[in-house]
């Protein structure tokens, strides 16, 4: 390829960039840049000029209203990615914090709070164990003798509760009691010293925030299109990651049609880490696919013939995360790898790794980013190396000596202050010596033969830095199409540039002159993944929100396939999201348009259709269905267990008794009356008038079995005491007790089990109050006093927050419903899970028997809300 005979004029000066403040919001519009005489040979006629920017481009119109799902949703329990709201202050506090300084305020206390609440054992384990006897959480007054070594925490807890309720109130003051308490125990209460923990949390938050602002790990994109071997064939391949952790590599045969279609099932490989980048190039008639995860890079060979399986060739492991992997378009089985330690390797499948450079410092000026990139150039032995400050080319045969600067963030390229290289790409398929460099502000096209001076520059005006790029070369006299994609904002931009030959000649030495590089036509925005939401069928609000989140996940890759069908060409653009979903859209081009001198292709701008085609609509429906089947269900463990009542009871058991009880009837009557009057029921009067029959105590015949005692002790944290108790028994006593127990066990085998230890979770509030009341010296071998017995609270302690379920759970009420004994326990356990929260009046179930099981609508409601956090045993 010959060098352009005349280049566009430009100034050249060296040094750091002078322009400040970044480009304006519309910096890419309305500029020709420079002009050049069009045909140097045609002196006689009137001279014509061509602009550097603003020429005519080809018209590519979107064929559909929005992107269309290409494959079924990635089947995985998808975890929504971090959003700024998770780690930033919001509300009044944010405004207060931001009043003084600019920038984001990390909600560091919230994260610490989450840690204390979610991992109380790790946060307060040992001191919690030591102190829990000295903290009293009940409502009653402390007894005189207990007051010496026990304090009542209830008031403090209430204070904390109130603080929570007043969150966001500008007049909030720290309660003196809380201040006093935190002052008192800040230094010793925490398992990990608070300062150290805070440092670590803060550091992690900063990291996460930096990742949110700009995450470069997916630079290059994890989607690759392997075009068909013969031009015009309709079958290509798509290489992409998938699976729950995005650690499966798929090679899917794709038939290019109106809407591309997957053929057969994909070849699949399970890898050792999350796939960050998939790069592909064709050398010697075969496709080579490089796959980068953080610590491993692998290379696959994909034979050209259809149906042939891809073969893995080699894997390397790095001790520092790799930041780049590119595949050589010149030599089969050659790749280049960069790691975050600043090392660049030439990786040959046959000859192994060759280190070309090791420099933790950046090249042209100091920048903190460890990101490095490398790509191939027109010379198969010369590689380009990039960091945030620029690009250099090195000769692999003598990397120390032979190198030159290709691009510098500086005045040479007319950069802005603060501008940084985001993604370099070798444009070899369009022109053997051209490279694309994107920064957060602009795109540059560089020619190796004229280093440092960009042959093309344009401010792209994208909201986020473009991390993905794809080149679709155009033939002679055609424009090359470059697609730029961003990650978080999912933007997708189509640019066209051209290198027009005045006389297209195959042989360079005969003097055919080639014109300089021009940007052709206005840039064009393509559909983003999130844009298809409005074309999907209407959803329930919480499903809609979930879908919105799913479709709004950052993009993770970009690929395009050119489909030629006579005069009609179409460009299929594939997009991968971080959730592993692949979408596609089609752009069509009618080649028969004669190029006008001034851009005339806007004459009839065919607006993209407003509604999706029936085929697209069908795909939406299928995709939604697969999504709701495969991974639409929220993960179970995050929510209170919801069991179908059908599994607990047979139908017969569930059938309402023939004659409703009198209580039942009364309640119904009252409900109806109140409804008629339009009043509200504040209190179930019948309960007062006709007190609920005291639940019959469980048939606890004698001592519980030792395992239950031990577990109960362990549950309540008294395990040490239990052990002492056991060892301090005298031998005879123990033997006697043992024998007696055995006899009892024989008698009552299968009748009792661990129910006691489980029910204790139901009533830990009262249990704690009992604990604090109990003298630590009481070492009776009998049934431990901590074991709560339903319906009969220990004397002297008023029933602490009587749980509403107790009435329901009483054996009597269960028995009267014909529920067998062994199932009662299951039911109790089941309800115990629900009783963890302090009952709200709304949820307070009446003793009405039909409400025994939680109505399904309630489980629906709670599944839409935030997953409930674990409550700490000690609430501070």
């Amino acid at each position, binding site marked *: *390829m*010959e*060098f*352009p*005979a*005349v*280049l*566009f*004029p*430009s*100034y*050249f*000066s*060296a040094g750091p960039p002078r322009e400040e403040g970044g480009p*304006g*919001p*519309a*910096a890419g*519009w*309305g*500029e*020709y840049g420079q*002009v050049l005489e069009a045909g140097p040979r045609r*002196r006689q006629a*009137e001279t014509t*000029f*061509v602009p550097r920017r*603003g020429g005519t481009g080809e018209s590519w119109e979107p064929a559909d209203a929005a992107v269309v799902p290409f494959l079924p949703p990635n089947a995985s329990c998808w975890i929504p990615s971090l959003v700024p709201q998770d780690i930033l202050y919001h509300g009044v506090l944010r405004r207060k914090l931001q009043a003084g300084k600019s920038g984001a305020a990390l909600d560091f206390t919230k994260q610490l709070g989450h840690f204390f609440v979610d991992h109380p054992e790790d946060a307060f384990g040992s001191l919690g164990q030591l102190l829990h006897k000295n903290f009293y959480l009940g409502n009653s007054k402390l007894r005189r003798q207990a007051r010496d070594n026990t304090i009542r925490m209830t008031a403090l807890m209430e204070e904390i509760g109130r603080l929570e309720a007043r969150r966001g109130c500008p007049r909030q003051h720290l309660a003196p009691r809380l201040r006093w308490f935190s002052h008192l125990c800040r230094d010793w209460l925490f398992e990990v010293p608070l300062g150290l923990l805070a440092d670590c949390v803060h550091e992690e938050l900063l990291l996460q925030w930096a990742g949110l602002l700009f995450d470069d790990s997916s630079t290059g994109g994890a989607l690759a299109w392997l075009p068909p071997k013969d031009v015009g064939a309709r079958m290509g391949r798509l290489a992409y990651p998938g699976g729950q952790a995005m650690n499966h590599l798929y090679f899917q045969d794709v038939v290019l049609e109106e809407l591309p279609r997957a053929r057969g099932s994909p070849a699949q490989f399970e890898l050792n880490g999350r796939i960050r980048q998939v790069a592909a190039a064709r050398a*010697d*008639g075969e496709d080579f696919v490089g796959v980068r995860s953080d610590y491993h890079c692998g290379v696959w060979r994909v034979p050209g013939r259809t149906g042939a399986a891809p073969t893995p060739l080699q894997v390397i492991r790095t001790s520092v995360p790799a930041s780049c992997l590119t595949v050589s378009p*010149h*030599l*089969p089985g050659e790749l280049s790898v960069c790691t975050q330690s600043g090392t660049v390797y030439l990786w040959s499948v046959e*000859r192994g790794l060759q280190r070309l450079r090791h420099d933790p410092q950046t090249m042209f000026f100091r920048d903190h980013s460890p990101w490095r990139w490398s790509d191939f150039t*027109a*010379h*198969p*032995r010369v590689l380009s190396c990039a960091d945030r400050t620029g690009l250099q080319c090195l000769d692999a*045969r003598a990397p120390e000596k032979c190198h030159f600067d290709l691009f510098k963030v500086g005045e*040479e390229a007319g950069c802005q202050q603060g501008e940084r290289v985001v993604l370099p790409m070798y444009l070899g398929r369009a022109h*053997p*010596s051209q490279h694309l460099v994107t920064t957060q502000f602009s795109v540059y096209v560089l020619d190796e*033969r*004229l280093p*440092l001076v960009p042959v093309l520059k344009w401010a792209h005006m994208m909201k986020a830095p473009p991390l993905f790029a794809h080149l679709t070369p155009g033939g002679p006299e055609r424009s090359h199409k470059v697609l730029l994609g961003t990650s978080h904002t999912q933007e997708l*931009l189509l640019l066209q540039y051209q290198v027009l030959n005045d006389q297209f000649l195959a*042989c*360079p*030495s005969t003097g055919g002159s080639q014109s300089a590089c021009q940007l052709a036509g*206005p*840039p*064009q*925005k393509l559909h983003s993944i999130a844009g298809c939401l409005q074309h999907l069928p209407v959803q329930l609000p919480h499903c809609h929100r979930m879908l919105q989140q799913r479709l709004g996940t950052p993009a993770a890759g970009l690929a395009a396939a050119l489909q030629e069908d006579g005069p009609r060409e179409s460009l299929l653009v594939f997009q991968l999201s971080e959730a592993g979903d692949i979408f596609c859209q089609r752009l069509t081009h009618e080649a028969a348009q004669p190029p006008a*001198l*001034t*851009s005339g292709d*806007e*004459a009839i*701008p065919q*607006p993209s259709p407003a509604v999706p085609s029936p085929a697209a609509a069908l795909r939406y429906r299928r995709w939604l269905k697969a999504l709701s089947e495969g991974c639409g269900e929220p993960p179970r463990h995050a929510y209170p267990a919801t069991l179908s009542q059908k599994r607990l009871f047979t139908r017969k058991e569930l059938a309402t008794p023939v004659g409703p009880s009198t209580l039942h009837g009364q309640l119904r009557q009252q409900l109806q009356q109140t409804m008629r009057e339009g009043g509200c029921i504040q209190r179930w009067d019948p309960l007062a008038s006709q007190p609920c029959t005291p639940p019959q105590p469980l048939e606890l015949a004698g001592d519980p079995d030792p395992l239950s005692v031990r577990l109960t002790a362990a549950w309540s944290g008294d395990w040490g005491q239990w052990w002492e108790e056991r060892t301090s028994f005298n031998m005879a006593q123990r033997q006697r007790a043992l024998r007696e127990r055995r006899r009892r066990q024989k008698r009552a085998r299968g009748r009792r089990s661990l129910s006691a230890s489980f029910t204790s979770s139901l009533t830990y509030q009262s249990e704690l109050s009992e604990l604090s009341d109990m003298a630590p010296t009481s070492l009776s071998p009998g049934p431990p006093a901590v074991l709560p017995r339903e319906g009969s609270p220990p004397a002297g302690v008023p029933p602490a927050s009587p749980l509403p379920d107790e009435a329901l759970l009483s054996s009597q009420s269960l028995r009267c419903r014909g529920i067998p004994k062994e199932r009662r326990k299951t039911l109790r356990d089941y309800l115990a899970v629900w009783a963890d929260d302090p009952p709200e009046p709304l949820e307070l179930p009446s003793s009405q028997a039909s409400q025994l099981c939680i109505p399904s609508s309630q489980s629906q409601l709670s599944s839409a809300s935030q997953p409930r956090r674990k409550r700490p045993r000690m609430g501070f």
Partner: protein
Amino acid sequence: SSHEHKLNFKKSKEVCLNYIQDAMLQKQWKRAAEFLTFYIESLEKDFSTAYMGPSEMIWRIGTEILCHHSHSSMKQFNSFIEQMKTLGVKRYLKVCLEHAFHLLCNGLIDEAYQNLSLAESWRFGEQTTIQDKEMKLIQAYRGLLDYYSWSKQKNILLEHGQNGFEDLSVEQEMHSCFRKAAVNLKEIIKIPGVWDLFVKCYVDLLEFYGDHNEACQVLNEYAYNSKFPANPNAHVYLYQFLKRHGESKKSLISALKILHDIVPSHELMIDFNTMLQKSKKRKKRQLGLEVIFAALDYAGWKENVKAWSCLARQVKQIVISEKHLDWIKQEWNSRKDWWPAFHFSRYLAKRNWQENESLSYEKALVAGILLGKDGKYFKYVSHQGCKAQVKRFRILKKFVNKHNPAYLRISG
């Protein structure tokens, strides 16, 4: 409150701008134009004292819309730009320059010239460095247009000269054009930059008036001043100039040698190679081999028949004379680990044979000598060639078989 009002105002401006951008990026120029009128309206009510960034935005967006809008005319465009020129003092020169570009691209060269002259006379206080640069560009482009009218008059004069009568007024005008053009062009090419267009024109002027020394100096300065970027064209122009003026082989070779050092893949390397091959000096012939090997290292030359035939010819010569086989050996040493896969794979043999027979012939000759008669490329091509009963392939096969010892010496 007023603060809140300001905030809301700012926000709605931003939203409006987003709408405009969105419409433009989807080529909905009419929609964008409507939004732009709202945006301008909103600015009229903007009493903020902040720096007028929006004026530049309106200029840029408006220009872009008018360039693509189906109902816009040149008249409308001109009146819009005239308004824009008065709107922002800081960008006045830039707007003028871009306006001139627009006129030039639409073939309105005289209007563009007027515009540039007008802009040149503009003065406003102290000039910033950017304005200074823009002013220089304006002058340079005016000089360029002067050059074009000079060249037009020159052509007229030459025609008249052929017809045998003189036209004094045309000649005078031509000279005045020359003076105006020369002054401005000379000015800009002193500043570091890429000025291919201006340098070419200036040299053309100088050459016409016989000032070869000045022209040579300008070209040398353009090529060798270290403050200028390493522009291959600068060396090409110098080489072409030297060639035009019949300079010695030696100076031509030294000019091309420098071009070879900075761009080994330049298309002139073929000329350079032929020039060197003809030389009597051994060193130069060796350099010629080096040059052609280096050019063929590049992906862009992979299928260049001319380059391959140059290499084939020289390699053949060396093998027949059996002298200087070490030259080939030296070049081959640094390439033998990757050229076979890069140039001489079986896949390429097949493709070259199918697509370009003469390319495959030249390459097969080189492959046969460098990789021996058992090399994949040579084997495939010679086999196919013999099968198709092409005479030169049979001769080729004989030649390679006969000179197989040369291969052994090169590879050994």
